[in-house]
């Protein structure tokens, strides 16, 4: 890391504020990832970092390099576009995988409950979750407990 010279004070100030803001948002998102209870809550937390946080840092970068090279530097817009396009993919993949599993396990849960009628048995489930999602109507899907048997293990 080499120290930077020749940066006007206003730019330095603006960059610092934006970078710190972005980093703070990312930190908050990470804290949320740590603190939230369920998967579906946790999944929202990092979006702070990928949207606002990343935005702040990118604007800071634009300001910094534009001021340093005394010409407008706007490459960061491309980064922003691709970030906006691609981060939802990861999110969607994660959430949909979780959904699928919860639906399958929800079924298993119903069966277990029907057989045992005991709240203690919930601890036996391999993937216990505090919050059960509301059944979601997926294209061609079905609701838990509609009699569909999943593949026995």
């Amino acid at each position, binding site marked *: 890391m080499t120290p930077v010279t020749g940066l006007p004070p206003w730019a330095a100030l603006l960059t610092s504020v934006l970078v710190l803001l972005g980093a703070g948002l990312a930190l908050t998102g990470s804290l949320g990832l740590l603190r939230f209870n369920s998967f579906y809550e946790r999944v929202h937390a990092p979006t702070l970092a990928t949207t606002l946080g990343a935005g702040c840092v990118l604007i800071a970068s634009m300001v910094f390099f534009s001021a340093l090279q005394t010409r407008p530097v706007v490459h960061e817009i491309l980064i922003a576009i691709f970030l906006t*396009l691609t981060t*939802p993919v990861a999110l969607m993949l994660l959430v949909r995988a979780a959904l699928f599993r919860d639906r399958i396990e929800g079924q298993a849960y119903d069966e277990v409950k029907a057989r045992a009628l005991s709240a203690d048995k919930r601890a036996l489930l391999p993937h216990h979750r505090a919050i059960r999602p509301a059944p979601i109507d997926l294209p061609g899907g079905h609701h838990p407990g509609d009699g569909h048997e999943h593949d026995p293990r």
Partner: protein
Amino acid sequence: MSNATLLISLTILPFAGSLVAAFLPANARNIEAWLSGLIALSALILTTACYWSVTAGGVMRYEAQWLPTLGLNFILRMDGFAWLFAMLVTGIGLLVVLYARYYMSPQDPVPRFFSFFLAFMGAMLGVVLAGNLIQLVFFWELTGLFSFLLIGYWHHRAGARDGARMALTVTATGGLCLLAGMLILGHVVGSYDLDEVLAAGELIRSHALYLPALILILLGALTKSAQFPFHFWLPQAMVAPTPVSAYLHSATLVKAGVFLLARLWPALAGTDAWLWIVGMSGLVTFVLGAYLAIFQQDLKGLLAYSTISHLGLITLLLGLNTPLAAVAGIFHIINHATFKASLFMGAGIIDHETGTRDIRRLSGLYRFMPITATLAMVAAAAMAGVPLLNGFLSKEMFFAETIAAHDGSLVDQTLPLVATLAGMFSVAYSLRFIHETFFGPPAVALPRVPHEPPRWMRFPVELLVVACLVVGIIPELTVGPVLETAAYAVLGPALPQYNLAVWHGFTLPLLMSVAALLGGALIYRLLREHLLGGVEGPPLWRHLKSQHIFERVLVTVSWRWAGALKNLLGTRHLQVQLRLLVGTALIAALWSLYGRELAVDHTASPALDPAFALLWTVGATCAVGAACLAKYHRLAALILVGGAGLVTSITFVWLSAPDLALTQLLVEIVTTVLILLGLRWLPKRIEGIDSGARLRIRARRLGDLALALVAGSGLSLLAYAVMSRPAPSSISRFFLEHAYTEGGGTNVVNVILVDFRGFDTLGEITVLGIVALAVYALLRRFRPASDSIDIPEQQRLQNARDAAPPLRPPGTTLTDYLAIPAVIMQLMFPFIGVLAMFLLIRGHNLPGGGFIAGITMTVGLLLLYIAGGIRWVEARLHVRPVRWIAMGLLLAAGTGVGAWLFSYPFLTSYAAHAELPVIGRAPLASALLFDLGVFVLVVGAMALILLALAHQSIRSHRTPSAKATVTPPSAGET
């Protein structure tokens, strides 16, 4: 033409012809024959043109620098003796080509035959004309290789494969011994130049290393010439097409052994060791071969043993240590080549026209093919040593030599008797060959109705038989000058007086000849009853077959011993292999540190940046976490490894190495996907199943941990020690200063890769391509563990959902769930492609380059596969990774070769800049083309590896049956 042109064209012509012949269409029988005939004829004319330069001890030489630092030059050298052999090789080659044109069936793939044939001719000429010991061994092994291919020409027959393999094993082993012997010989003389070696006979014979060198060289020569105890391969090689037998096993290949003996005669002969080894081997082969030949039931088998016997005769003559015997040996080389080639061709005609070579079935063929019968009778008479034929002359010289006293030992005393006995045997088998084939009642139930062969198929036999007759009647006028030229080249001024006349008066040798003729006839008469019994092989000897002993030895060495060693030293456990590897590395490092101290310069290390320290803490935590979780939670471990990789990548950025950072990042991505694909095939492990592990296992794990800690920290210490000391003055400064001026690029890393060290890069991408092909080849025969064969749980659940009402086609769940992400991922593909191109083009000046661009492109492909699945992608996009690899290599190598067009060394690059519309000023170094090759190859290699692994999941895997696991793999598994 100058000497150099003559010699070079003589060596190159057959190989060039071989290349052309290989590419002719499969049914071009006549064109092939014409081509081969013309090549052989031109070679013959060229050889003949050399004659006037080699008479009276003249030597033609052509020398070119090859490896001057090692004192090795490429030397072509022709003297009288080499000329004689070149004449045999080209002359008989021409006749055999003519013969083969009619012998080979139109169904046979003739391009292969003539291509190998010409290549063999070239290799043989290479042996004969070699003026350098190493060069001689090279061509020597080449003859073995091509003879292997020719013997195994009809490779659909098991016998042909076995015979070819045996011939190759025996002669190539001999060839390796020969190489060792030649190296010793070169060491003794101080030069590998044949002229210097031949001139240093006294020095060699008195040197302490004479005996080892002699034994090794003789092993080479005796195996090639099928001398006892290595004679067994020649009869097995009779499965070759008859033209091959006529050429290789009478006139050329087997003669290479005696050629070498005669060639090195001035340097090695004249000692007791030579006399006993060469002489005894020759004597035993001479007698044994003749005896065994009598009892063969196969025409070619009989001829093969007779060839062994005659080669034994030549070896014996060369081993007798007298110049006159050597002259007789050289003379017999000529005579044997003429009559034996014609006999082989005669046997081939009989086989061709009757459909069998079995002596028991043949009879009375004189009626059907009188001309062929007459020719064969004359040739067989020459073989038996009947007067007025060439065989008689050299045999009488041999008898004369046996009588001349040498050292007075028991062997020497009995030599004339043994020689006469062997002479009787050869008369007996010659008689048998003629009598049982051509006389007696007409054969019945032959596969074909016998008749005379086509006119031109018989022509080579006629020519050779006429040669036998002419040489036998007027030797002094015909073969005299040639023999003198050849013998003078071997013996030099020590050439003795000899007389080639047919009639020497009533002498002891004549008596021996008459005794051999009468005795041979008598032996045949006495053995006739036994032979008509139709039993294969001689009495008593029948059960002791050399080829069986050879096979036993081979099985023991290559199967039992190898298996035992594998059981003793091999392991299928990765842990053991890794332990050995890491342990060896540790010991090697400690060994080199022993007694020295590892200087670590603490003062040079700069102050630690807290941010950097934090970064590394994260990275180290990830790495340790990955190691802890690796056993039971592989996916989590993989994610943590990715984290460690990211930290490494950021470290590179921190330390101002953007190229490395970019490469590291991309490699991390691809590696993660690669391991993800592999995870599915790893055996399942369930946590807690071995919690009560035994003490021994715990101890082993602790030991492994200790080993890992010691090796890892040692490596870190070494790395720290190296990095903390001042950098030595290396060539990196040169690269920094000259990257732009010489390479035309400001990205020094890339300029080094594609320009300064382009040759290294070419090697590296070649290795990459080979690795990819190897991975592909290994995965093609991939057998997963039985518990990994079932489709994974997730997939089963999805399929169950698809199968449940409402019924949907399988895979719908996945498609539904992936619908939106898949669209975005597919959308990204063109952008990633553009990015890859961008990285490629700017690579010469800014971070990027072919390698980085290649991986980027692969990542794009991967995304497509993830989004759409294998079948979706491959229905739309033809991914042909192997072609990409080939194209990349060709492009990179082609760019390198392109420099030759401008008469610069290989891989010289040229840099320029061009003004392009829209894009602006763009660098246009020729290195960019090279980089494009790297790019294409990297894409191909990575894609091949990833796809080979990905395709496993749609392959159907069989559960290994219980039977398959019990039976050991057979050697011939194909």
